């Protein structure tokens, strides 16, 4: 048991660090530090840059363009990326759909979609939630009725992030309404330009347009767009939830965020003296830092388990709960440190409240972290089930 990187890992770290230092655009850095929302073009350009370097689809297998890194290398990469104030900047296609297609897709689907995701030629959004199916996702009602070689879709998806940027949507639909409700769900790929699709913007409480409602009215989708078997959709969704465990905790970005908070507290004054010297602020920052350390080492432990081949379990629920708590605490601290510098609605950025201009929207949007992807309450239900079944480590 030791905490040190091997000489190879240290060399890798130097390489990654140097690359990010040289290649991260200043504008992206600024947005990452202040928490300003990235635009589609920001992300596409950045992903293409990473892909050119071979560092975009780090979670994909080598045969599909992944770099073939060890878990430690992926950890180092993420750490250096965040420390350089480079955005995660990963689209749903890279994080979510890629691994699904790798695991469940037909050879044709892999060939058709994976390269286009890597090159950012397609932009995928995720159609899971529905107005009546949030925490109770399995009760979703959007129907896909087989009709010859097609499905005909009717229903509505909500909280669909960046649907207004998307060329495609992967979604869960109901192909059967008999039996257990989970078993009637299928995983389907849809081109957004098909007839009968309407995207309605939802402005969130950060004042930004991330989210949408997507209405599907008699939308025809070829049956070859089905991923996996009919009725396998729920298992695919669950696979995804437990699959991408390195990133769920968000350790690297939290560390960068915390470093920014310490900088901000050093810059902001209270009675003319650095706020960082204020007794209560010191304790608050210390508490946040220590919670982040607990998260980091819990993440390490889960990674170590994964490396030794243990089956993915409810750790993802634990990491999500711990991780979102830390993220929300840090965003809260942004607003507290900023005080009146955080007041101006961010359209008014010309006032030069610089570092603090996006503290409020970032904090506001951070509240979604305990709602989407399975609310905090649902994660705890999952963990309770495991605990009471005697599955605690």
């Amino acid at each position, binding site marked *: 048991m030791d905490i040190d990187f091997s000489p190879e890992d240290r060399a890798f770290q130097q390489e990654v660090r140097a690359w990010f230092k040289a290649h991260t655009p200043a504008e992206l850095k600024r947005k990452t530090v202040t928490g300003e929302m990235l635009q589609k073009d920001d992300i596409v350009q950045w992903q293409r840059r990473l892909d050119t370097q071979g560092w975009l689809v780090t979670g994909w297998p080598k045969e599909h363009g992944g770099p073939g890194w060890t878990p430690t290398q992926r950890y180092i990469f993420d750490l250096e990326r965040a420390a350089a104030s480079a955005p995660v900047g990963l689209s749903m296609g890279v994080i979510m759909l890629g691994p699904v297609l790798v695991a469940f897709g037909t050879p044709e689907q892999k060939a058709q979609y994976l390269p286009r995701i890597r090159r950012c030629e397609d932009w995928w959004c995720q159609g899971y939630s529905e107005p009546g199916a949030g925490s109770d996702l399995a009760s979703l009602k959007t129907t896909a009725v087989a009709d010859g070689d097609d499905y005909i879709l009717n229903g509505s998806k909500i909280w669909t992030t960046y649907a207004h940027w998307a060329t495609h949507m992967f979604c869960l639909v109901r192909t059967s309404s008999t039996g257990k409700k989970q078993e009637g769900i299928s995983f389907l790929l849809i081109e957004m330009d098909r007839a009968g699709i309407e995207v309605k913007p939802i402005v969130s*409480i950060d004042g930004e347009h991330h989210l949408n409602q997507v209405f599907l009215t008699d939308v025809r989708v070829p049956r070859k767009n089905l991923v996996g078997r009919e009725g396998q959709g729920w298992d695919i969704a669950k696979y995804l939830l437990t699959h991408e465990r390195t990133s769920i905790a968000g350790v690297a970005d939290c560390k960068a965020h915390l470093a920014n908070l310490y900088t901000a507290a050093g810059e902001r*004054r209270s009675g003319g003296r650095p706020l960082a010297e*204020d007794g209560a602020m010191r304790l*608050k920052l210390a508490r946040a830092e220590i919670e982040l350390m607990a998260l980091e080492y819990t993440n390490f432990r889960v990674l170590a388990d994964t490396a030794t081949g243990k089956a993915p379990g409810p750790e993802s629920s634990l990491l999500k709960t711990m991780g979102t708590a830390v993220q929300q605490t840090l965003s809260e601290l942004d607003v507290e440190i900023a005080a009146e510098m*955080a007041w101006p*609605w961010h359209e*008014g950025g010309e006032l030069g409240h610089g570092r603090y201009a996006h503290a409020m929207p970032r904090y506001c949007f951070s*509240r979604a972290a305990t*709602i989407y992807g399975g609310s905090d309450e649902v994660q705890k239900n999952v963990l309770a089930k495991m605990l009471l079944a005697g599955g605690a480590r």
Partner: protein
Amino acid sequence: MNFDLSEEQTMLRDAAQKFLRAEYGFDARNKIAASEPGMSREHWRRFGEFGWLGVALPEADGGFGGGIVETIQVAEALGAALVAEPYLASTVLGAQAVARAGNPAQRSTWLPGLASGELILSLAHTEVDARHDLAHVQTRATAKGGGWVLSGRKSGVLGAPWADGFVVVARTSGAVNERRGISLFLVGARTPGVQVAGYKVYDGSRAGDLRLDDVVLGEGALLGTEGEGQALLEHLIDLGIVAACADALGAMGALLRKTGEYVSTRKQFDVPIASFQVIQHRLVDMFAAVEATRSLVLMAALHAEHLDAAVRSRTVSAAKAAIGERARFVAQQAVQLHGGVGMTEELDIGHYFRRLTLFCNLFGSSDHHLQRFAALRAAT
């Protein structure tokens, strides 16, 4: 000891609630906040007609002779309705400054107009390096030819773009952190050398930064005694905190009620989510937070005019520290229990959330007031 409202106080509270419910619904409020001025002068004058703006001003000045207990009745109702108009900025901070320190000329210039809603007067005290240290004042006022010349910067001035004038806190003597040497000045918004950089605030109100470059003022601009303004300023901020806490109470009460209604109707897993015990207990925790807040607002109001300034400030800080934590909790949980829809601009929940978030750090965070409370223990 007596904790009951008088009949007049009860009427004031009920009338404010009734009017705002009828005339200041969420849609009407959003139209006002989104308009170019960002406030409704018409509503403001009606608030004046109802007596809300002069409720704590002496009758001789066009007011109704009430005090902080009347003020918090109005403030709670305004918070519950998400009102954007500058009640805290002008009616509490601005008008009370003149009411407490103004000479006859200053009173007659400002108070009747403030009471009727014709005028708006903001307090400009914060500076960017001061944070919540009221004695940290870099803005300087120099005596010149019987009058004064002001120069400096103020940040976070509530209601600034709407203000007809400012009560500006400036230093006439002393070092930058000294309690002595602080003076208050009445400065017309259109006085040469005054520049307001206004902005829309996340709670839908307006505020701004103030730039004062060699602003020449007459002798009559000095409010109160030269160099002795600190005690008044501290009292004003304490009053402002009490009113802000009452406003927060209104918002928290509204969130509790709305969240209770939502969880009773929203179904997941085929049942209303209110049937989940975890949701029920969360609601109870929100209820307990609101009840404690009501108690603390009462406590602070009952000490707002305490003759011993240390006792007053310590009690007010206790309230602000504890209510801040509770406001954050209630706001966060209201969004959480609403789920996705709680995150949308369309619903009022998020607007209460933002109003309470700003409240948490207004006039100092909970930690700031916890430390002030602890420091004042020795003094009481």
